[in-house]
Structures are given as structure tokens and as C-alpha cells.
């Protein structure tokens, strides 16, 4: 029983990683007032760029760089439309998701001729599990040994990066000058402008950070969690990250918990497939899969707490001129 639980939690960490990175990405963007429906597209674009570059150069790290570059470019398109040209944030996000969904397969087929996939990645082209020091030695220790060797050890570096990003994001958003400006721009851009700070430049930096984190999340999908790019492999994770961002009320630690909860539900759903539980009987997998979305809807409707986003979110900033 205990071992099963550890295995489920272990899977939770792996499933949550891209959600955490993408949700924190969304946090930077949305805190600055830019709605980001395009997390999904940036994730998918990052995954494709990472797998393609890793396949060509044989290095997961070069793949990661390409993923970040691709995702940041998409973020800049979003910024160009929403910040510079005051376009609709949601339309722009939908555009990016649509373009990426088509472009990855189109380019993939042209470059690798494998029906839109990238070649299977092996060796250095993937991020491989890291065994933490003494993990093997302490594996026999009851309870704690298993927790250390199974749950904490044996993940690839991007998993650890994702979890480190949470305190880092907290620090940047709540303890630095840039973070203060970032939050201010999302709440009251006029005040920021009056203080002599460029609203557009703060927002551009926010969407770039968003792009960087989405790129890492994408690289995780194709070069760490899987061994190559598959069509539509982000499979709604960007939207789920958006749900987690709202569920966590745009704050880093609650967002982390939301991602872990959603990841846990996912891991449990896989485990419970066709298993009959005492009393309730067999729970349909779909009922568990759908819980993150249902919970988010309930939260948004104010039935379980209240989610209030940044005040100026989605509104273009027009500088007043005399």
C-alpha cells in the first residue's frame, strides 16, 4: 500500500512538472495584465523545437535552448499583438495555438519525413534521471529510504528545476523591484506610467519570462518525459496549467499545490483504470480526468473560495496624450 502510494506520488511529480512550469509562465504574463491562452501553443512549439534540435545536434541541452528560443518568439508575437497593437489577448492566444498546432506537424514532416514526428531520441539527446547521492544505499531503510530513493531521487534535472522555480518566482514577483512593477502594471498601469516606468517594457519582459518557462516545459515534454515529438503532444496541458494558475489564484505556492493536485488526479486516474474500489465500485477514469476542470469552474463561480485576477488583465493600455 505504502509502496503504491509512493509510486503514485512519484508519477505525480513527473506529470506535474510541465504544469508547474507552464502555470508559472502564465503567472508572469497574467500578473502583468496579459491574458495567456497561448500557453498550450508555446508548450507545443517548445516541445517540437527541443526534439528537433536534440535530434539534429544530439544534445538535450541544445534542444532546451531551441525550445526556449521558439517559445520566446511566440511570446513576442503575442506581446507584439497585445502590447504594441492593443489586439485582443484571447484572439491572439488562439491564433498562436492554431498556428503552432499546424506548423509543428508541417515542419516535422518536411524535416524528418516521419509523418510529423521527430526521430526517437536516445542517449545525450534526452534528459536522463539523476540519482541523488546515497539513494541506492538508503533504499533499504524503511519508509524514509523509499521516500528518498523512489520519490525524491531518480528524476531528470528539469523536474528539479520546475520545483526550484516556485520559490524563485515567489522571490521575483514579491521581493524584487521588477516584481513590484510587474504586479503594479497588472493592477493599475496608469499609476506605473505616472511613476515614469514604461508599461509596455515591463509587459514585454513579463511575456519573455513566460516564453522562457514555457520553453523549458516544452523541452521537458519531448526530451525528458518522452523521447521525441508527437503530433499534439501537449494534449491540453497548457490549458490545464491555465486552470491551475486560476485555481492557485495567481500566487506561486498555491499554483504549485494546484498543479500537484491536478498531477495527482492524473496519476490516480491511470492507476484506477479498471480497478474496483471498495464501497464506490469502479470509478470511471473520465470522472477523475475531468475533476481539474470541474474544480476550476466551481472555483471561478465562487462556490469554493473566490478567484480574483489582476485588475487590469486583458485591457490594452492606452497612454493618455494631452
Amino acid at each position, binding site marked *: 500500500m505504502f509502496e503504491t502510494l509512493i509510486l503514485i506520488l512519484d508519477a505525480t511529480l513527473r506529470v506535474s512538472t510541465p504544469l508547474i512550469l507552464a502555470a508559472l509562465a502564465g503567472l508572469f504574463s497574467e500578473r502583468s495584465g496579459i491574458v495567456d*491562452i497561448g500557453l498550450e501553443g508555446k508548450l507545443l512549439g517548445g516541445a517540437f523545437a527541443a526534439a528537433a534540435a536534440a535530434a539534429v545536434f544530439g544534445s538535450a541541452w541544445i534542444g532546451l535552448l531551441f525550445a526556449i528560443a521558439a517559445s520566446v518568439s511566440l511570446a513576442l508575437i503575442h506581446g507584439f499583438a497585445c502590447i504594441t497593437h492593443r489586439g*485582443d489577448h484571447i484572439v*491572439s492566444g*488562439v491564433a498562436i495555438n492554431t498556428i503552432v*498546432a*499546424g506548423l509543428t506537424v508541417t515542419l516535422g*514532416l518536411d524535416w524528418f519525413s516521419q509523418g510529423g514526428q521527430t526521430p526517437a531520441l536516445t542517449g545525450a539527446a534526452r534528459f536522463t534521471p539523476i540519482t541523488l547521492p546515497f539513494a541506492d544505499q538508503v533504499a533499504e531503510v524503511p519508509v524514509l529510504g523509499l521516500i528518498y530513493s523512489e520519490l525524491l531521487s531518480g528524476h531528470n534535472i528539469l523536474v528539479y528545476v520546475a520545483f526550484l522555480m516556485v520559490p524563485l518566482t515567489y522571490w521575483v514577483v514579491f521581493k524584487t523591484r521588477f516584481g513590484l512593477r510587474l504586479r503594479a502594471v497588472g493592477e493599475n498601469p496608469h499609476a506605473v506610467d505616472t511613476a515614469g516606468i514604461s508599461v509596455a517594457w515591463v509587459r514585454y519582459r513579463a511575456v519573455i519570462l513566460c516564453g522562457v518557462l514555457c520553453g523549458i516545459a516544452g523541452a521537458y515534454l519531448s526530451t525528458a518525459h518522452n523521447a521525441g515529438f508527437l503530433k499534439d503532444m501537449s494534449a491540453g496541458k497548457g490549458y490545464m496549467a*491555465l486552470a491551475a494558475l486560476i485555481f492557485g489564484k495567481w500566487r506561486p505556492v498555491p499554483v504549485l499545490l494546484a498543479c500537484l493536485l491536478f498531477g495527482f488526479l492524473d496519476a490516480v486516474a491511470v492507476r484506477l483504470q479498471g480497478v474496483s474500489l471498495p464501497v464506490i465500485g469502479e470509478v470511471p477514469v473520465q470522472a477523475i480526468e475531468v475533476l481539474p476542470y470541474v474544480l476550476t*469552474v466551481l472555483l471561478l463561480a465562487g462556490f469554493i473560495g473566490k478567484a480574483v485576477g489582476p485588475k487590469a488583465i486583458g485591457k490594452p493600455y492606452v497612454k493618455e496624450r494631452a
Partner: protein
Amino acid sequence: MSQAKVPVWVNVGLIPLFNIMLALLASALVFLAIGENPIEAAGYLLYGAFGYDEGIGYTLYYATNLIFTGLAVSVAFKAGLFNIGGEGQAYIGGLGVGLVCLWFDSSLPLLLIAPLAIIGGALFGAAWAYIPAYLQARRGSHIVITTIMFNFIASSLMVYLMVNWLKQEGLMSPISRTFEESAWLPYLHDLLAPLGIDMGDSPLNLAFILALLCCVFYWALVWHTRWGYQLRTVGTNPTAAQYAGIDNAKVTIWVMLISGALAGLVGVNEIMGVNHSLLLNFTAGYGFAGIAVALMGRNHPVGIILAAMLFGALYQGGGELAFEIPTITPEIVVVIQGLVILFSGALENMFKGKIEAFFLRRAAA
């Protein structure tokens, strides 16, 4: 100077056209990037879409779905709402159509089943839009997020229902039994053959006529009823609407019900017209494509028909293109669709100011 006005045709015609040209130009760059000649590709596309009878039929069949979802997105836009849940509403609408067909196909004639199925699709689609609409109107949750969530919920619900309840016994894949022929919407090529018109063997069916009727309905509703006036007022200026005594929340709910019903009618075309059984994933992205159609069609039924035909042509021509040039996937059509959303939606203001300024200067001179 203040008297000078930008001519109407510039705003209604020139700027949208300019944006679409930019989108097509960007698409051409994508073709160049994968080493294909965009002009040659456009030739295959056009031939596939319009070059022969069956191709035209397919183009119109795709356009049927896109008219439904385009109108759905557009009517919500008119009231200032972004219904991104057309996909889920179409999916559940298809369920409604399918259930009607499965229940009545051996007991009722087509003349009764068809209206029942249309009502079923519209009701189910509307019901799926009702919850997000209610939550937006009464509890202030953002409709974009809720409708996205409802797309996923719809997808899980359909998998559950198909696998556990509606799947035909003894089949591996989750498909319902095939309806009796009394629940098949007639193909247009069957209807037109006695008149001596040969349409080839395309899946184009009567749902296309239904889609055109919906355009008329949309036009009458939005511009020729008191209710349409309310909805446009809410969309243009919600505060003014409130002062004028319009119940914004009520309008929000009603407009989303209509939007969901329109999206749900995709099921009539797909389930009753073509597949003749209930299955998974028949919506195939039409709900999202509806956003591009509505944007490109400038939220006017005539524009939406034209935009739906263009995208229908891209879908059908994309298949032809992939067949002629094996290094191209039909997914390239999705790229073009995305670029249209980008240039005529998100970036619509990019050149608007410059073009308007040009005409203002000319008018002033």
C-alpha cells in the same frame, strides 16, 4: 479636418482584405520555408476545392460546419462575449442529434426525425452553453475560461458515454450502431440527380440548406428585432445598455443559448448527414475554426458564408494538396487558419491607423 471621414468601403472592405492578404502572404512564406512553390500549391488547392463536382461538394460540406460554428462565435461576439467553447457545444449537440436518431430511427419517418434531431442538437448545444453563460451572468466567472473548461469536460463526458453506454456491442472502437436509413439526412447529389444535375459523390447533404437558413435567421435576429438591438447595445456599450433598462445578464444568457444551439447544429451535418452513427471526435476543430470564420467574415452572415467557403476550400484543397505533394500535410491548412486569426483578429489594428490616416489626408486635401 474633423469633418473628414474615412470612407465606409475602406473600413468594411479594404482593411479586412488587406489583413487577409497579409495572412496569405505569411502562408506563402511557410510554403517557401518547406521548399514548395506557393503558387503551384495554390493551384492544387483551388483545383481540389473547385476543380470538379465532387471537390465542390466536399468544399460546401466543410463550409456547412464552419457556417454553424462561425455564426455561433459571431453572435456571441455581437454581445461582446467570446465563446471559445464552440467545440464542446458542437460535440454535445452531436450527442443530442445522435440520441434522437438512435431512439426514433426505426419508429418514425425522416420527415419527423429530421426536425426532432435538429431540435435535439440545438437544445443539447444550448444546454452546454447555458452553464458558462449563467456563471458569467450571475456569478461573474469569466466566460472564456469556463467555456475552455467545458470543452474538456464535454470531451471526457463523450468518451465515458460512448465507451460505457452507446458503443455497439462487439466492436473494439467506440462507435454506436449505424442508424436506420430513415434517420439519414439526404445527400444533395441524390436530391439533385433526378433534376439532371450531377454533383459527384460528396457528403454534402441537406444540412447545408439548414446552415443557409441559420444565416438568414441570424441576420433577421440581430438587425431586425428588438431583441437583436438589445444584444448589439450590450456588445457595444454595456453601461449604456444598463442605463437604457436592458438586463445585461439576461441578454448574456440568451445570446449564449443561441450561440450554443448554432454550434450544436454541427451534429446534424456530421452525425445525421455523414457518419450515420455516433462516434468520438467528429468535431475535428470546427469549433475553433469558427473563430477564424467569424473574424474573417466580420460578424456578418454574408461575410461568414464567404469565409466558411474559403476555409472549406482550404480543408478540401488541403487534402488534394497533400495527395499531390506528399511532403505536405493537410495540417498546413491549420497554419493558414491560425495566420488568418492572427492577422485579421489579433493584429487587425496593425495597419488600420496608417490606412485610415492615408484616406483622412486625402479627404482633407
